[in-house]
C-alpha cells in the first residue's frame, strides 16, 4: 500500500472499519513507514486531547434529567386533571362500568386456574428428567468483566464502554487479550462457554489464571477500574465523595455487591439539601461556618480537622444548600463525605484528602526551587565586582550610575565578606547553606567553624570601618573615633583577627535571603585581658522570590473582551472597614487618624452588594489601603482583574448553578469563585481565628497581651510568625501589637523557653527578685544553664548562688527609670563590689504612671544600695558624691513595648549575665574584671 492510500484509510482504521486484507495492509505499512505512523499517533493523541479537554466540560448537570421529568410530570398531571373533568362525558352509563369490572374478575379467575394446572404439569416433567447432567465449565471472569456485567445491570453498556475506552484500554487491554489466549486456541472465549469439555479440563486450570484470581490487583489497575466505575455511575450529589469499596473477597458476588452498594450510595440525593440558604460570612473559619449552617438547617454539617481552621468568605442569597456545599468543596480541592447512623439522618463532613495536601506540598516545593534559582540570579549580579576590595568598591560606588550604585554600596559595606566567601564555597557547603545552616569562617576557628582563606582577611577587616585600634604600651584599645590620630584601621593591626558568617534563610515561604556578618576579634591574652570582638552586618545582601509571590496575572486577562454580559456590568466599589477592626490611633496632636485598612473579605462583601453575584473565596490576612481596592463605574471583568493583581487573587465566574428558574446568564445564580494565587503558601502562614479571637479578647480585657498569652503566641510555627502580611494583620486588624515582639527568629527560642514554666513561675520572673534557680525543676534548670552560661562550662555549683531568671515585659503608657545613653542593663542589675570576685544586686522594676512617681520610686529603691555603689564608683572617680549616683529627673523615660529575658547566673560578677531582647542578643554584661 502507498502512503497516500494508507492515509485515506487511517481514520477508518482507527475506528476499526477496514477488516481483513485492508487492515493487514495498513498494519504492515504502518510498521515500515515512520511518517504514517506519526500521523496515526497524532490522530490518537488528538482524540485523547479532545477527550481530556472537553470531556469534563460536557458532563450533564446533575439536575438536568430531574428537571425534565418534573416538567413533564407536571404537564401530564395537568392533562390528566383536564381529562378527569371530561370523565362524566366519556362514561355516561354506570351500568357499562359494572359490566367491564365483572368481565375482568372472570378473566383473573381463569388465569389463576390455568397457572395452577401448568405448575402441576411441570412438576411431573421434572420427575422424569435424567439426574446426571453435563456441567458446563465456568470460565473465570476477570475483575473488569465482573464490574462490567455488574454495572450493565442498571446502566447502559455504552457508559461502561465509554469509561473503558476513555482510558485507552478498550480493544488493546492486556486483560481483555488474556481472555482470548487463556484457552490457547485463539477463539473468542465468549463462544467457548458453549463447548462441552472433559473432566480433566474441568478440574485442572492454567496456574497463571489461578494465580491471577487470588492475587490482588495492582494499585494502578484497581485505580483504573475505580475511575471507570466512577465515570459510569455519576452521583447526583457529585460534591460528596463516596469511598470506593476495597475487597478481600476474590469471588464474583461480593465484588458485584460492592459495586451495587457503591451505586446505591452514589444514587442518593438528600432532599434536605435543596433547602435555600442565605449566607453572609466574612473571613469565617469553616468549622464556624458549618456550625452556623447546621443551626440554620438542622443538617449535620461538620468541617474535619484538616480544614476546620481554613477561613472563607461566602456571600449568597437564597441558594440551595447543595450548591453552597459544592462551592465550599470544589474550588478548594476539598471533599464532602457522607455517613449515616442506623435510623439516623445523613451527616456530612468536609475534608481535604492527603492527595490534595501533597499536591499543595508539591507547589510549595516548586516555589522553593524557583526562589533559590532567583536568589542565585541575584547573587550572580555581584560577580563582576569580585576583583574589587571593599575600599575600591566604595570608591567605585561613589561614581557609579544610579542603577549600579545600591548594589555596589551593599557590596562595599559588610556585604563584601559573605559575597566573596559565597563564590568560594564547595558544592557540599552550598548544599548546607541552602539547607539553612550558618557557616562561620574564622582566622582562629573554634569547633564547628571553618578556616578563613588567608587572602580574605584584609578585605574582611576593611569592611569593618566603624572601629579602629589604639595601640597602648601593653594593650590594644578599640575605639569608634575615626578622627583619633592614634587610631589605626583594623587591617593594619596584626593581632586583630577576621571572622565572617554567611547563611541563607527562608525568610518567608517562597522567599530566600542571603545574610552575612563580618567581624574582627582580639583573642584573650596579654594584649587584651578579656578579648574583644565586633560583628557587623546589614542583611539582606540578596533576596530571591518565587514568581508566584509577584503580582499575579489572572486567567481572565487572557480574554480581553469578555462576551459575557455579567462581566461587562459597570461596578462601583466602596468597601467599608469592618466594625471589628480597631481604629488606629492618630499619630500626633492635630493629625487625623490614618484611614483603617481593608481585608479581602471586606472588598468581596462590597463586591457582592454591588453586583448581587454569589461569592465564595478563601481568606488570608492581608491589608490594603481603601483607595487601592475602590472603583467607580468599571466593567466587572476589568475590576476583577485589577483586584486580582492588587490582592494576589485569581477569579473564575462559574456558569453552573442549581437555582431554579434562573436564566443561564443571570448574575444571581452564577458563583464568583476567588482564590489566593499563593494559597498553598498562605495556608501555612495563616493563624486560626479561634486563637486570634482569644488573644485579641485578652488584650482588650487587660489593656495588654498578658505574658501567658504572648508565650502561647510564640508557640506558633516560625512560618506563621515570619509572615509579614500575617504580622501586619495581627497588629493592625486584630489589634495585637505584641505580635511584633516575636518578629526575630533568634529571640523566639527564649520566649518559647518561658512556655516550659507555670503561670505562677512566670509571675515570679516579672517580680523584683525574679525566678530563683532553686525554684526551677530539673528540665527548666538545664534550659536555664544552656542559655545563661553558654560556652563557659560551670566549674562549681557555688557559682550559681543567687542565679535568677528575670523577664522585663513593658507596655507604652508608663514611665521608668533608666540610665541615659540608650538601652543599658543597669535597669535590672547594679554591681556593688568591684573586681573579679565582686557582687551585684538586682534592681526592682521601677515603673509608674507618671514621671514624678517613677522618679520618687527610683529614689526610694536606691538608698539601701547607695553606700555600696558609692564605694564602688569612687574607685574610678573619687569626686563622686551620693547625690550624683541617685536617679535624676532626666533618667525617667516613657516605657515602650518591649520584652527582655535576663539570665543572671549568680550574684558573683565572675560570670557576666546574658540578656536577650527583640533583635538583640545575646548581650553579655557586667562581667567582673
Amino acid at each position, binding site marked *: 500500500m502507498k502512503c497516500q492510500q494508507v492515509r485515506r484509510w487511517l481514520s477508518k482504521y482507527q475506528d476499526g472499519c477496514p477488516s481483513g486484507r485492508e487492515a493487514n495492509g495498513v*498494519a504492515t505499512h504502518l510498521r515500515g513507514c515512520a511518517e504514517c505512523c506519526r500521523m496515526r499517533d497524532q490522530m490518537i493523541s488528538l482524540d485523547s*486531547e*479532545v477527550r481530556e479537554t472537553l470531556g469534563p466540560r*460536557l458532563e450533564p448537570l446533575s439536575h438536568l*434529567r430531574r428537571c425534565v421529568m418534573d416538567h*413533564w410530570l407536571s404537564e401530564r398531571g395537568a392533562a390528566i386533571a383536564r381529562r378527569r373533568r371530561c370523565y362524566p362525558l366519556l362514561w355516561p352509563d354506570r351500568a357499562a362500568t359494572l359490566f367491564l369490572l365483572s368481565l375482568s374478575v372472570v378473566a383473573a379467575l381463569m388465569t389463576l386456574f390455568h397457572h395452577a394446572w401448568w405448575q402441576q404439569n411441570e412438576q411431573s416433567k421434572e420427575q422424569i428428567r435424567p439426574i446426571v447432567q453435563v456441567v458446563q465449565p465456568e470460565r473465570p471472569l476477570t475483575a473488569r468483566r465482573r464490574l462490567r456485567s455488574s454495572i450493565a445491570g*442498571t446502566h447502559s453498556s*455504552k457508559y461502561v*464502554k*465509554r469509561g473503558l475506552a476513555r482510558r485507552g484500554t478498550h480493544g488493546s487491554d492486556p486483560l481483555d487479550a488474556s481472555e482470548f489466549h487463556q484457552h490457547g486456541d485463539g477463539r473468542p472465549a465468549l463462544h467457548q462457554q458453549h463447548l462441552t469439555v472433559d473432566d480433566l479440563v474441568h478440574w485442572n486450570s492454567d496456574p497463571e489464571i489461578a494465580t491471577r484470581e487470588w492475587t490482588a490487583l495492582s494499585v494502578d489497575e484497581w485505580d483504573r477500574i475505580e475511575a471507570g466505575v466512577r465515570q459510569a455511575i455519576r452521583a447526583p450529589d457529585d460534591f460528596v465523595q463516596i469511598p470506593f469499596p476495597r475487597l478481600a473477597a476474590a469471588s464474583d458476588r461480593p465484588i458485584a455487591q460492592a459495586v451495587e452498594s457503591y451505586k446505591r450510595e452514589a444514587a442518593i440525593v438528600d432532599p434536605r439539601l435543596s433547602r435555600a440558604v442565605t449566607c453572609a460570612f466574612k473571613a469565617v473559619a469553616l468549622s464556624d461556618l458549618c456550625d452556623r449552617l447546621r443551626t440554620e438547617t438542622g443538617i449535620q454539617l461538620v468541617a474535619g480537622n484538616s480544614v476546620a481552621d481554613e477561613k472563607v468568605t461566602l456571600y449568597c442569597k437564597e441558594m440551595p444548600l447543595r450548591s453552597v456545599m459544592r462551592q465550599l468543596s470544589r474550588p478548594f480541592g476539598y471533599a464532602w463525605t457522607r455517613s449515616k447512623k442506623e435510623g439516623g439522618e445523613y451527616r456530612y463532613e468536609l475534608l481535604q484528602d492527603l492527595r490534595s495536601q501533597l499536591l499543595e506540598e508539591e507547589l510549595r516545593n516548586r516555589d522553593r526551587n524557583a526562589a533559590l534559582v532567583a536568589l542565585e540570579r541575584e547573587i550572580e549580579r555581584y560577580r563582576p565586582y569580585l576583583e574589587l576590595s571593599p575600599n575600591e568598591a566604595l570608591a567605585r560606588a561613589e561614581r557609579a550610575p544610579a542603577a549600579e550604585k545600591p548594589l555596589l554600596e551593599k557590596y562595599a559595606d559588610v556585604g563584601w565578606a559573605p559575597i566573596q566567601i559565597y563564590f568560594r564555597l564547595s558544592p557540599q557547603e552550598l548544599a548546607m547553606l541552602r539547607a539553612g545552616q550558618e557557616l562561620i569562617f574564622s582566622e582562629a576557628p573554634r569547633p564547628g567553624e571553618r578556616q578563613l582563606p588567608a587572602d580574605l582577611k584584609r578585605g574582611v577587616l576593611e569592611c569593618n570601618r566603624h572601629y579602629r585600634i589604639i595601640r597602648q604600651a601593653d594593650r590594644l584599645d578599640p575605639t569608634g573615633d575615626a578622627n583619633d590620630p592614634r587610631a589605626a584601621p583594623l587591617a593594619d593591626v596584626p593581632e586583630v583577627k577576621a571572622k565572617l558568617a554567611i547563611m541563607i534563610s527562608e525568610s518567608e515561604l517562597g522567599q530566600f535571603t542571603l545574610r552575612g556578618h563580618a567581624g574582627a576579634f582580639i583573642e584573650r591574652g596579654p594584649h587584651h585581658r578579656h578579648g574583644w570582638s565586633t560583628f557587623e552586618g546589614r542583611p539582606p545582601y540578596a533576596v530571591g522570590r518565587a514568581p508566584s509571590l509577584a503580582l499575579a496575572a489572572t486567567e481572565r486577562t487572557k480574554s480581553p473582551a469578555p462576551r459575557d454580559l455579567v462581566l461587562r456590568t459597570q461596578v462601583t466599589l466602596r468597601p467599608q472597614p469592618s466594625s471589628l477592626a480597631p481604629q488606629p490611633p492618630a499619630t500626633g496632636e492635630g493629625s487625623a487618624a490614618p484611614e483603617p485598612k481593608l481585608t479581602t473579605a471586606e472588598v468581596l462583601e462590597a463586591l457582592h452588594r454591588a453586583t448581587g453575584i454569589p461569592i465564595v473565596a478563601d481568606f488570608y490576612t492581608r491589608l490594603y489601603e481603601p483607595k487601592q481596592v475602590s472603583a467607580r463605574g468599571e466593567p466587572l471583568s476589568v475590576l476583577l482583574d485589577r483586584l486580582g493583581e492588587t490582592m494576589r487573587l485569581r477569579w473564575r465566574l462559574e456558569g453552573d448553578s442549581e437555582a431554579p428558574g434562573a436564566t443561564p446568564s443571570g448574575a444571581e445564580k452564577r458563583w464568583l469563585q476567588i482564590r489566593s494565587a499563593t494559597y498553598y503558601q498562605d495556608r501555612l502562614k495563616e493563624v486560626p481565628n479561634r486563637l486570634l479571637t482569644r488573644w485579641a479578647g485578652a488584650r482588650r480585657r487587660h489593656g495588654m497581651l498578658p505574658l501567658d498569652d504572648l508565650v502561647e503566641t510564640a508557640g506558633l510555627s516560625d512560618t506563621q510568625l515570619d509572615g509579614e502580611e500575617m504580622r501586619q494583620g495581627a497588629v493592625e486588624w486584630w489589634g495585637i501589637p505584641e505580635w511584633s515582639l516575636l518578629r526575630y527568629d533568634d529571640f523566639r527560642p527564649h520566649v518559647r523557653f518561658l512556655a516550659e514554666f507555670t503561670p505562677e513561675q512566670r509571675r515570679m520572673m516579672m517580680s523584683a527578685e525574679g525566678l530563683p534557680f532553686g525554684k526551677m525543676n530539673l528540665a527548666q534548670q538545664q534550659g536555664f544553664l544552656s542559655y545563661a552560661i553558654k560556652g563557659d562550662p560551670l566549674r562549681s555549683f557555688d557559682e550559681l548562688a543567687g542565679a535568677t531568671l528575670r523577664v522585663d515585659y513593658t507596655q507604652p503608657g508608663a514611665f521608668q527609670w533608666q540610665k541615659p545613653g540608650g538601652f543599658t542593663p543597669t535597669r535590672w542589675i547594679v554591681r556593688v563590689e568591684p573586681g573579679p570576685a565582686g557582687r551585684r544586686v538586682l534592681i526592682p522594676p521601677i515603673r509608674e504612671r507618671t514621671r514624678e512617681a517613677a522618679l520618687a520610686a527610683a529614689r526610694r529603691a536606691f538608698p539601701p544600695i547607695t553606700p555600696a555603689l558609692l564605694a564602688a564608683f569612687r574607685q574610678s572617680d573619687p569626686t563622686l558624691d551620693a547625690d550624683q549616683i541617685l536617679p535624676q529627673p532626666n533618667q525617667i523615660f516613657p516605657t515602650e513595648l518591649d520584652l527582655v529575658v535576663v539570665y543572671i547566673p549568680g550574684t558573683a560578677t565572675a560570670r557576666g549575665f546574658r540578656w536577650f531582647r527583640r533583635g538583640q542578643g545575646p548581650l553579655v554584661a557586667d562581667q567582673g574584671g
Partner: protein
Amino acid sequence: MNGDDVQREQIVGVQSWCLAVSESDERAVREAALLQAAQTGDLTALDELLALYERPLLVFCFGILGQREDAEDAAQDTMIRALRALPTLRQGQASFRNWIFKIARNVCLDRKGKRQPTEWLDEDRLAIGRELNSPEELALRRLQIADALERLPPPRRAVFLLRVLEGWSAEEIATAVGWNQKRVYNELGKARGALIEWRRRSAEDEAKR
C-alpha cells in the same frame, strides 16, 4: 513484520467486533424493555431510558451548537419533546436512538436559527489539582481546542464528538443521525484531517514566534 503480529492484529480486531456486537445486542434488548416499560407509565424505566441518552444528547447538541449553555437547553428541550411524544412511538417502527436524535437535530436547528451563542468559554467542571498545569496553560489549551473545533462544520463536529467523547461506533452514530456508515467514516476522517492540519499550522506559528 512476522506472522505472530498479523495473527495478533486479527485477533484483536475480532475481539472488538465480538464485544461490540454483544454489547450492542444487550443494549438493544435492554433499551426495548425500558421503552416498553416507560410507555406503560413506569417512571423508573423512563428515567433510566433518559439516563442512557442524557450525555450523548448533550454532546450531540454541543457539537451542533458549539456552546455548552445552549447545548444544555437543547438537550433539555429534546428530552421534554421526546417524553411528550413517547406514547406515539411504536416499537419496531423506528429505533428509539434514531428517533430521539432526530428530535435533537430539529431542536438544535431551530435554536441555531433563532439565537447566537452568548459565551463559548466557560470555566467549569475542571478537575481541580488534577494536573499541575497553571490555569493559563489549561485555559489556553481549552481555547485552542475550542477554536479548532469551532472551525469544523456542525454536523461533522457532532459526529466527531460522539465518536471521541462517547466512544460510539460508526454504526451507532449512523443510526442516530440517519446517515449511512460510509458517510460517518468519511466525516470522521475529514474532521481528524482538519484538526491535524490545524495542529500543524499552530506548531508552525509557534515556531515562528
